[in-house]
């Protein structure tokens, strides 16, 4: 169901600072909203996001209900070597989703 949108430059020079943008489709239900009948809608959010560069963790985030639906996270890293970025989102109700992107560094 859920799907990710990743933006990583395909090529970079060694030592260059690159921006990584990620977007994950998710409702991020806060757990504070009520239906018209007054019942509380249970919380359903992504709680954690991790990015690994060739297996080494370079960025991690803890998310809370105050993050908007379809969480967008962007951050930077130094392009050190060609390889792969692995992204992982985990959340409530057993939600896990992964994505990856390749980069070639000259």
């Amino acid at each position, binding site marked *: 169901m859920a799907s990710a949108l990743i933006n990583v430059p395909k090529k970079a020079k060694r030592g260059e*600072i*690159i921006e990584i943008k990620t977007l994950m489709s998710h409702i991020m239900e*806060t757990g*504070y*909203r*009520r*239906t*018209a009948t007054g019942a509380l*809608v249970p919380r359903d959010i992504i709680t954690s996001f991790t990015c690994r*560069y060739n297996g*080494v*963790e*370079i*960025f*991690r*985030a*803890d*998310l*809370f*209900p*105050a*993050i*908007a*639906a379809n*969480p*967008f*996270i*962007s*951050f*930077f*890293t*130094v392009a*050190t070597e060609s390889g792969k970025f692995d992204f992982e989102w985990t959340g409530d109700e057993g939600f896990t989703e992964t994505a990856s992107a390749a980069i070639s560094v000259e």
Partner: protein
Amino acid sequence: MRRSNNSSRRQFLGLAGGAAVIGAVPIITLRRSEATPAMLASAIRNVVGAAVVQTGRVKIDVPPLVENGNTVPMTVTVTSPMTADDYVKSIHVFNEKNPQPNIGNFYLGPRAGRGQISTRIRLADSQKIVAIAQLSDGSFWSVSADVVVTLAACTEEVI
């Protein structure tokens, strides 16, 4: 002629009064699930412990006036050389008046290259946002920004 004018004015005032009463109800329900400045202080305490938080080096980019609190773009930038022995360890963002005080914790490292993160957040009310950065030497730096929100997020009714 004059009489009918008067009665329509009376009707209008009556309607306006009724609308004001209806409008007041959601404000009361919002207040109930608000984080208090004390909750904000204790959330910050949980992160920084007993350390002293200094002001400066951190910048929050967020629109000062927001129409829709459901998605507010926010960028936090920390001034740091980002070398192997002087870098930003983590960035923590808090709010004052959402139902709970945390927005997000972001863990960077020496490989980040730039001490900056962007995301989109929810704001339930016009309020203060606080960003705290922990540097590699263990020091904490903070900044706050005020945002005015016209349409609140988080607690609205599901239709």
